[in-house]
């Protein structure tokens, strides 16, 4: 699958107009011969299939080439930035899960219509609140409060928390909507009635029985949310100045750095794929019925 992903991206990047050297070509002080020689140095004059073959074989050895704009190895750059994004993403995930768990448990435990209504409202608003809107307002708020942009760019814990909170908002919609629905449904199942009849306290019923049944669809969502977090990091990191994979993608595109774009695409797809696989394994561990059935992990 990664091969297919990389082939699509490679084909796209090589298909139409311009590469990292096209800016050089417009510079009147750089002669046509220089550009051609540079193309030979970087191997841009060879046919597409050959270039892709070279790229794949290097990739298999863990070498993703050299970034044209950063002048360092793509692999090192991408992984160090991925680490930053993962830090942010995990924090965002923790926020989203924390909020969702708290609210959905409060909803089934207290069983008040007003809580259900507010959860529906929160899901609607968080689902409709684009990250770019939220990120810009967060920026405006910080600048308004502190009077400078330094408060955001210094990489402090507060800055990280702010970025993670912004990143988490659409994920809250994803988790809260699902968790609330599943938990409500589980509370009406026969096994919950049985657990109550057994004399367990309501807290135990919810924590040990209902939540376990509600967990599996959530693990699917967990897999999905990884893509959302990595993709969403593009805007959040650019606006709030967090040095992660998203910000790297933008600078790679703006500087037409094809090896770097390729590296970002492959690594982010691999990260999403890995996340989905982990989610599937966790599902099997949680639900014994799945162990015997065939799962393509």
């Amino acid at each position, binding site marked *: *699958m990664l091969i297919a992903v990389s082939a699509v991206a490679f084909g796209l990047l090589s298909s139409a107009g311009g590469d990292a050297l096209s800016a050089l070509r417009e510079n009147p002080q750089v002669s046509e011969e220089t550009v051609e020689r540079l193309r030979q140095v970087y191997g841009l004059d060879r046919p597409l299939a050959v270039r892709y073959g070279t790229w794949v074989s290097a990739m298999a050895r863990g070498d993703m080439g050299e970034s044209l704009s950063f002048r360092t190895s793509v692999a090192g750059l991408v992984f160090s930035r991925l680490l930053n994004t993962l830090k942010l993403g995990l924090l965002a995930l923790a926020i989203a899960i924390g909020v969702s768990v708290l609210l959905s448990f409060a909803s089934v435990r207290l069983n008040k219509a007003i809580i259900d209504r507010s959860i529906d409202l929160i899901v609607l608003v968080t689902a409709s*609140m684009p990250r770019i*809107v939220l990120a*810009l307002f967060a920026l*405006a708020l910080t600048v308004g409060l502190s009077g400078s942009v330094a408060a955001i760019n210094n990489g402090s814990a507060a800055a990280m928390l702010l970025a993670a909170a912004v990143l988490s908002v659409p994920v809250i919609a994803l988790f809260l909507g699902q968790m609330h629905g599943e938990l409500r449904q589980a509370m009406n199942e026969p096994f919950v009635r049985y657990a109550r009849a057994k004399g367990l306290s309501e807290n135990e019923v919810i924590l040990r029985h209902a939540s376990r049944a509600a967990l599996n669809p959530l693990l699917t969502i967990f897999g999905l949310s990884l893509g959302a977090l990595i993709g969403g990091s593009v805007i959040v990191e650019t606006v709030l100045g967090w040095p992660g994979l*998203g910000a790297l993608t933008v600078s790679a595109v703006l500087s037409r750095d094809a090896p770097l774009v390729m590296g970002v695409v492959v690594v*982010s*797809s691999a990260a999403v794929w890995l996340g989905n696989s982990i989610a599937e394994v966790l599902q099997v561990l949680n639900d014994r019925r799945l162990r015997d059935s065939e799962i393509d992990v």
Partner: protein
Amino acid sequence: MTGDAAKGTLRKFGAVRLLAAAVIVLFAIVVVLADFIAPYDHTSQSRHAVSAPPSSIHFRRTDGSFALRPFIYQRRLADPLTQKYEEIETKQYPLELFTEGESHLLFGLIPVRTRLFGVSGLAQEAPRVYILGTDALGRDRLSRLLVAVRFSLIVCPLGAALACLIGVVIGMLSGYAGRLPDMIVMGAADSMLAMPALILILAARAAFPLELPPTRAALLLIIIFALTGWAGMARLTRGLVRSLREKEFVLAARSIGLTEARILFRHVLPNAAPVLVTQGLILLPYFLLSEVALSYLGVGLQEPAPSLGNMLAAANDITQLARQPFLLLSPAIAIFLFVLAVRVLVPDTSLRQGGPNDEAR
């Protein structure tokens, strides 16, 4: 649904949905009449009003008497450093509806000079009325916002429609053919879906020249949306077709000797249509936000043409952002309103079933 239940539902959700529908209609009116509603040309600059706050519209004259027609005062720059403006309260300039203004093309065809509202009197000496203030180049922000909304709401539905068309055709053929073609097509669709959508869109954008004139940028955006958006639609269509082709009415159609193509397009497709239309509408906010993201990053629609994204790029000016946050971010508010209205009217089922990636949101 029984009558009572229907009434109950209407009571419960009617008002909100009605409001959402009204918002959508408002956006639709802007799409059709952007230039007419805009008081000024979206490129015309005023050197005397740079980063100006909104004009304050008065009803009470300096002597305390009440004016039936709202008016504004001439303003002058009091402090260039902090960009403070003060009003010169000697002469009033009344506002009027259907005023004579800069000429524009109604429906993009008919040249007219009438605009919805503006300051009456000769355009040369009268001050301009700025509902949302001006940007750093002295252009009326409201006019730019209206034109930007029009651009986004033309490009994104076109992109969504094209993506749906490609996705539906591919999905139908794949689902109906089965076996090897199905495996190849769905493998391709899955690899597309495995990539975070915004990163995929950016990678596709990187393949083309970074700076483009507006019409070509619009075309490119539509093509990129179609190229990157078809996969989810194809997957959905394929699933529907595969379940529908086992139904009795397909067997019946086949038994009376209809061709496969006819069965596919006249019998299977209409039954899949409602789900597909909903999915298509859900795509709309995703594409809108992708367009905003691209333009914000400077690789979508570029200055001087206004788009929701490149207007938001003004927020990169931190001092200005601290001074007028809501004015600078008014495009963001418009985006939020539109997305919210769409979501109220078309509930996103993918939130419950696990659907397409949603990172652009």
